[in-house]
């Protein structure tokens, strides 16, 4: 399948995403320049990590106005699959494609380390190859990854199974110590209600190669590949979601 990786001024992990998809997973992966509205007919879009526009005002605040993001908005509205990692997650939140917002880490410092994530919903296009409550090891590297949303939104996210990953300890417990940045509900990644837009602070593209950082990140990409290649156009909705 064909993947597009957005490139904003200040994107840093765009090359890592292209490497992971192209070199490691053997996918057709192209870069999509921010000034360019054309998505080149990709099946899925990755909004990569980095410091788009320097993240000077608020993380991700400026990227959403670029021509490419307008196209991504339309793409998502038509059911297209969009994944945001780190800065990409922040951009998707700022753009309103995902609920909530990411604020300064509780520690007020940038944190780069491996974390354990627990799969909270394995019945999605992004996690279908994971086991329910499986624990993945994937690195984080961010200064503003503390997930925040109002109680009502949080309630909905939980009820509809839109929380896909939580920070946990090696035993799979979501303890305060295992929550690196103070995210509400230890939330590490969320999906939109429709199930086609997903964002997470950790970097799966940095966990696809045993030589550097392990392979757990591959599960995410492979899940979506699996989902799309079986031609399942409509993402299966979360189990917790009552609707058909």
């Amino acid at each position, binding site marked *: 399948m064909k993947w597009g990786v957005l490139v904003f*001024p*200040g994107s*840093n*992990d765009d*090359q*890592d995403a292209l*490497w992971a998809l192209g070199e490691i997973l053997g996918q057709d992966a192209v870069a999509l320049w921010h000034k360019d509205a054309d998505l080149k007919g990709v099946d899925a879009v990755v909004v990569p*990590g*980095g*410091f788009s*526009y*320097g*993240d*000077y005002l608020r993380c991700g605040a400026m990227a959403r106005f670029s021509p490419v993001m307008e196209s991504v908005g339309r793409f998502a509205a038509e059911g297209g699959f969009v994944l945001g990692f780190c800065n990409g997650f922040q951009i998707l939140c700022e753009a309103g494609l995902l609920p909530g917002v990411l604020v300064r880490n509780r520690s007020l*410092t*940038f*944190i*780069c*380390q491996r974390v354990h994530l627990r799969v909270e919903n394995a019945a999605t296009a992004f996690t279908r190859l994971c086991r329910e409550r499986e624990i993945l090891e994937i*690195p984080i*590297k961010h*200064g503003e990854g503390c997930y925040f949303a109002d109680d009502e939104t949080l309630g909905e996210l939980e009820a509809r199974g839109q929380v896909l990953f939580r920070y946990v300890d090696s035993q799979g417990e979501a303890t305060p110590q295992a929550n690196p940045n103070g995210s509400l509900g230890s939330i590490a990644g969320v999906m939109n209600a429709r199930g086609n837009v997903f964002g997470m602070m950790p*970097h799966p593209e*940095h966990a696809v*190669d045993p*030589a*550097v*950082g392990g392979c757990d990140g591959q599960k995410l990409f492979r899940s979506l590949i699996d989902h799309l290649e079986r031609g399942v156009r409509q993402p299966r909705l979360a189990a917790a979601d009552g609707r058909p």
Partner: protein
Amino acid sequence: MGAPAPVTVEAAAEHGLTADEWQKICTILGRTPTGEELGVFSAMWSEHCSYKSSRVHLKSLPTTGPHVLQGPGENAGVVDIGDGLAAVFKIESHNHPSFIEPYQGAATGVGGILRDVFTMGARPIANLNSLRFGAIDHPRTPHLVRGVVSGIGGYGNSVGVATVGGEIYFDAGYDENILVNAFTLGLVRRDRIFRAAASGVGNPVMYVGSRTGRDGIHGASMASAEFDEDSDEKRPTVQVGDPFTEKLLLEACLELMESDCLVAIQDMGAAGLTSSSVEMAGRGGLGIEIDLDRVPQREEGMSAYEILLSESQERMLLIANAGREKDVKRIFEKWDLQAAVIGHVSDDGLFRARWHGNEVVRIPVEPVSTQAPVYRRPIEEPKNLNEMQELSLADVSEPPDCDDVLRRLLASPNLCSRRWVYRQYDSLVRGHTVVGPGSDAAVLRVKGTRRGLALTVDCNSRYCLLDPYVGAVIAVCEAARNLVVSGARPLALSDCLNFGNPEKPEVMWQFQQAVAGIRDACVALGTPVVSGNVSFYNETQGRSIPPTPMIAMVGLLDEVSRCLAQGFRRAGDIVALVGRTREELGGSEYLAVVHGRVRGAPPWIDLGFEKRLQGLVLEAAADGVLHSAHDVAEGGLAVALAECCLASPDRLGARIELEQSMRADVLLFGESQSRILVTFDRQNWPRLRDRAQREEIPVQAIGEVGGTRLEIGDWIDRSVAELAEIWEDALERALRVVA
């Protein structure tokens, strides 16, 4: 700040120029200089840019070798790493600015060294930093540490270059003068290296990057002046870094270098537009004429003097092929940057600057460097040296409980975990990092090949204080050793020589001794010096820092998959100590922490033996025989063993037996050089032992990996978990003080 008038020898003095230097200037020009010209000379002839006190000594350093593609003299050094690729690297200091404004000082230091590397056409892939702060309980230290560390991270993380290692030490000798040395390594195709020599008379000189503001006017001279109370007056010169613009500049420059528009390019660092113009013209033996009114400016009403000497960050000066201006502009516009033609290359060998229609600078370029002052400053061995080196073990009381000593050492700020620091650095971006911060050296893979690069920066300034020659030898050897225990063959180094006031004979003696030590070690180990930087005047109110010759070394692995880290890997492995333990304690961390004394001669070292030892371990690593390797350094054998447990992915312990050939504290905590701990499968022991015997290198099997405790003879018995408890957050705890 305008041009000071009238221009007299007094004005020159205010610019830090001596009467002789003033005379030289008048002779070179055949007249008295304009205020702008005086500013140009004072910058170009500052210690920072001219190396006037260090040059005579630096000349003795070995700078060539079969794999050296570019030695000192360009923006950074370049070595061949095979597969048609080259590594470009350099270390540089940003000490004074970081003391005045830790965050911005450190951040702009990283920005500057990044530009030195990508200006040569290389894509930066890794940063290191080497830091020295005052005593950890000094009221100002926590504030400085937090500022510097977040500044390094804030800039490097944002630009998207991984920070994969470094050093941080605390010593009261740096209370009033911290050290912030930044290193960058980049990769370039060896047939695409760019140099900064002007060529092609009539070619346009173009300015790219941020606009020019009143930032850091006279930073170059500031870095060359001692601190005193009125340093506060110098504060407005502190620059603010803009990593976002740097990232755009990096991408735009690399894209430009893929085109055929570019003749030469040079970053605007110290003394900004002035030094970049003069250096480019000088290297090409040509002239440069620029029109200051065409320089993009951030503020109204800037004087010619300010435009010439501004040290605004994130700017580059380049020479394009005539007729290609539009193509250059198109590339920079793509990256939302401006490029402006501000002058051209001339054949008259002059640096000329016009402003508001007048020629304000007209300086023959060649004499600025060839006739730059060179000082052979007086040298004198410090009076108290012999006294400092005296140490008799007899009056070092033997501690009752070595187990307790080990725990105290593991909690000491100079030996505890650095995680709090490197956790704030993105060590992963761009996916090269095979071994990140926390081992002896960082190991990076070279994508598209089987190779890897290992990087480290080292210096024990306590050794250097007690004996600058031996201290410098040890710094080079330890750097090489750190590469070897990572499985890498040492290639070359970049040095950053941080010293006090060169006008003091004792300081100059320390400098001369240190350079001699670096020279001898480099010759013995076959690691030339390909780039570096000198930082003098690290002195406040007459008190100079301990001599600190920082050594950043780069090594090569032919098979990156064979790289090693220091943590124990497999239960049942044999732990062997390669090398010899001598009965010495001079300058050790143990002596300082437990007995509160900094004295004695630094550890004995034999360069021939060191070379053979490294060869032995390198061979074993290349054979894939070793599972882990770690050199024995500060804290001695016991601390090194503890580090092997603490760095072990599964926190494996070990059971160690040492024959007691000497006092227990000396045996466990002495810092004898040329010692390496290795682990391997039992079946490989005979092979390693025989090889060592052939090389006449002592090697003993001292124990076995396994369990969850570290046991050393009857002296030490602790669970690794407990040691981790003590060691892991000690730094954070010590710094958790309100700034």
